[in-house]
C-alpha cells in the first residue's frame, strides 16, 4: 500500500498539539499497520427470566477474527447478514466491549487505553453508518451535525474559524456550503450520506469504519459516494475498513478483502486473490450467486446454489462452521476447526480442502 510520508503537514490536524506517547512515536517510524485485530470475540449473553435473569447461552456474533488495516489502505469485510460484520465495526469504534481478543491501534492496545489516549483514539477512528436517514439527528442542522464533535475535541477547530471549517467540509464532500443551515429532511439520501462523511472528516480521522455506506443508495448516487471516498483517501491518506454485503462494491473499493461467515473470517487476500481465485467453498458459492451485468457473461459462470440457511450463531456447528452447507464436508470438518492459513493457493483460507476454483466469469473466457 502507498506509504504515507508527510502525514501531518498538509492536513489541518497539524494545528492541534498531540500528546504522542512513546509507543505511538515508535509506531510512526515502524511502518506497522494502523490497525491490528487479533482473536477478536464478542459473545452476547442469551438471557431468560425477567427479575432473576439467568444466562442460558451465548450468541457468538464475532468469534475469533484477525484483521489488519495498513496505512492508507482500504480493507473490505464482506459477508451475508448475521455474519457479525457490523459487530466488528461496533467493537472497533468502542460501541461494544470485546469479550476477548485485542484491537491494537498504532501499536497501542485499545483495551488498555485510558483518558486522553482513549479520547484521541475515538477521534481518530470514525464511522460512517449505513442508513443516512436514522443516523442524522433530524433536529440539528447539517452544520451543527458536522460540528458536534468539536464540542468534545475542542483543539481540532479553533472556535472562531468553525463556520469556515464547516463550509470547507461541506464543500469537500460535494455539498453546497450554503446548505449548512438546512435540516436533514431537506436533503436526499445521497446528500445525507455526504453529511455523514463530513461529520467523520470533521474529526480529522486516520481510520474510517464504513459500515455499509452505500447500500441504501441508488446506483448512480452510490457511484458518486464511492468516488468521493476514494478521493478523500487519496487526498488525506485515510485508511478504511469497508464493510458491505455487495461483493462488486467491495471489490471495486478495496485493496484487500476478507470474507466472513458466522463470526469468522474464512478467506482473505487481495481483491484479485479472493475474486479471481477463491479457495474457500463459501467464497465460491457467494461469488457464484452474484448476477453478472454483461449479457455476454450470462450463464458462463459456474453457479453453486447453497441449500439451507445459515446456522444460528448461538449454536454454531463444531469444527468448520460452513460444513453443514458444504458439498466438500467430510468427517475431519466436524472434528477440526480449520485455521485461516495459506494451503498453497497464495492466500489464506479456512478450509481443510481449500482449492482454487474460478467461479466469476470474465470477458477473457468462460470458466468451468
Amino acid at each position, binding site marked *: 500500500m502507498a506509504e504515507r510520508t508527510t502525514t501531518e503537514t498538509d492536513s489541518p490536524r497539524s494545528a492541534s498539539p498531540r500528546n504522542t506517547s512513546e509507543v505511538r512515536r515508535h509506531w510512526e517510524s515502524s511502518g506497522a499497520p494502523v490497525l491490528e485485530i487479533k482473536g477478536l470475540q464478542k459473545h452476547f449473553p442469551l438471557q431468560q427470566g425477567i427479575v432473576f435473569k439467568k444466562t442460558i447461552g451465548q450468541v457468538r456474533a464475532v468469534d475469533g477474527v484477525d484483521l489488519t488495516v495498513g496505512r492508507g489502505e482500504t480493507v473490505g469485510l464482506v459477508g451475508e447478514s448475521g455474519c457479525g460484520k457490523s459487530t466488528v465495526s461496533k467493537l472497533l469504534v468502542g460501541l461494544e466491549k470485546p469479550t476477548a481478543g485485542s484491537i491494537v491501534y498504532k501499536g497501542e492496545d485499545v483495551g488498555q487505553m485510558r483518558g486522553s489516549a482513549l479520547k484521541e483514539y475515538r477521534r481518530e477512528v470514525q464511522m460512517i453508518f449505513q442508513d443516512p436517514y436514522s443516523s442524522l439527528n433530524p433536529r440539528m442542522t447539517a452544520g451543527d451535525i458536522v460540528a458536534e464533535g468539536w464540542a468534545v475535541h475542542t483543539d481540532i477547530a479553533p472556535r472562531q474559524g468553525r463556520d469556515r471549517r464547516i463550509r470547507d467540509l461541506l464543500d469537500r464532500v460535494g455539498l453546497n456550503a450554503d446548505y449548512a443551515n438546512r435540516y436533514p429532511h431537506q436533503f436526499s439520501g*445521497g446528500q445525507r450520506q455526504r453529511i455523514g462523511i463530513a461529520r467523520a472528516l470533521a474529526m480529522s480521522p486516520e481510520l474510517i469504519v464504513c459500515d455499509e455506506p452505500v447500500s441504501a443508495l441508488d446506483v448512480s448516487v452510490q457511484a458518486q459516494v464511492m468516488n468521493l471516498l476514494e478521493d478523500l483517501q487519496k487526498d488525506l491518506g485515510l485508511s478504511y475498513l469497508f464493510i458491505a454485503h455487495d461483493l462488486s462494491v467491495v471489490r471495486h473499493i478495496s485493496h484487500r478483502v476478507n470474507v466472513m461467515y458466522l463470526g469468522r473470517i474464512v478467506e482473505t487476500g487481495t481483491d484479485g486473490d479472493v475474486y479471481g481465485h477463491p479457495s474457500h467453498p463459501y467464497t465460491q458459492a457467494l461469488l457464484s450467486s452474484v448476477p*453478472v451485468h454483461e449479457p455476454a457473461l450470462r450463464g458462463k459462470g459456474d453457479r453453486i446454489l447453497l441449500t439451507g440457511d445459515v446456522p444460528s450463531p448461538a449454536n454454531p456447528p463444531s469444527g468448520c462452521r460452513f460444513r453443514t452447507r458444504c458439498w466438500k464436508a467430510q468427517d475431519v470438518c466436524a472434528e477440526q476447526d480449520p485455521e485461516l492459513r495459506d494451503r498453497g493457493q497464495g492466500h489464506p483460507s479456512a478450509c481443510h480442502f481449500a482449492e482454487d476454483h474460478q467461479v466469476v466469469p470474465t470477458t477473457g473466457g468462460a470458466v468451468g
Partner: protein
Amino acid sequence: MSTTPSGSHAVGTGTERVGTAAPRTGAPVLEVDDLHVEFRSRGPVVTAVRGVSYSIAPGETMAILGESGCGKSVSAQAIMGILDIPPAHVTGAIRFEGRDMLTMGAEEQRKIRGPGVSMIFQDALSALNPVYTVGDQIGEMFRAHRGTSKKDAKAQAVELMDRVRIPAARQRVDDYPHQFSGGMRQRVMIAMALALDPKVLIADEPTTALDVTVQAQVMDLLKDLQRDTGMGLILITHDLGVVNEVADRVAVMYAGRVVETGTIDDVFTRPAHPYTRGLMSSIPLLEDKGHRLNPIVGAPPTLSRIPSGCSFHPRCPMARRGPGGGDCVSDVPLLREVAPGRRAECHYSEELLHG
C-alpha cells in the same frame, strides 16, 4: 460495460433472440397503455407515472428497471388496483386479455385479478399478516376465490409450499411468518401469489431484501415456476445484474416514463438512452476491479417538479439546445423506434448507437 468486440457479438445474438421470440409471444396477456398516475393531495400534484405503455406475453419475462422514485412500483400497483383512489388518480388503459380493467367495477376487477394477475412484494415480513399462520394465508386465496373448504384449502396450501420448495411443508403449514427466515417468507409469498395459477406475476423487488445466496435460490425458483406454468413475469428491480440473468426484455424507467425498451442483450450491450448508459457505467463489476466509476451527475428529479423538455436533460452529458436536432430543454422526446425491436426516448439515440 463498454462496447467491446464480445459486446458486438452479443448484439448479433440479441437480434436473433427477437426473431425466435416472435412466434412464442403471440397475443400479449397484459397491456398497459398510456398509463398516468397522479397523486393529488394538499401539496403540489405529484406525477408518479406519465404515460407508460408496455405489454407482456405468456411465458415472457419483462424487467422494469429504474432507480427509486421513477414510478416503477406505482405502475405495478396501478395494475393491481391497490392504490388508494383518491389521492391517486389513474388514467389510461390496463387491458388484461383485451378487457380494460380501469373501466370495470371493483368487484369485476377483483374477479379478474385473482386468477389473472398477482403480485409479490419486496418486504415479505410486512406483506404477510403476523397473526395468521402461513397455511391460513395461502389457503385464503382458495377460500375467497373458489369457496374451498378450510380443510381442503390447507391441503392445497401444503401442496403449494412443497412447490415453492419449503422443506417439511406439512409441519410448517401451521407456523407463523416470524418463524420463517427471510428467504422462506419470500417463498410463502410466492406460494400465495401462485395459488390461483395467475397468467401474469408481478414481482416487485422480490430479492432486494435477501442475501445474495438466497437471492440466487429465489430467482431460480421463480424461473422454474415460470417455465412450468407459462405465466408472464414482470420483474421490477433496480439491480442490473438480476435483470441480465433472468429477463427477456427490459423497460428502463426514469421520472415516470419508459425511456428505453428492448431485449436485454441489445439494451445492455448498446444502450440507446444516455440514462441507461449512465446506469451501466455507475455499477462496479464483480469480474474486474475496474477503474474509477463514472456516475450520472446529480440526483433524480422530484416528481412534483419534473424538468421541462427531456426530463433527464439536467443530468445528461449529451443534452444540448437546438437548432439542428431536438432541443433537450424545451422539446419533449417521444418514445420512438431507434433500431429494429427497440425503442428509446432521446433526441440523439442514433448518436449513442452509431457514434
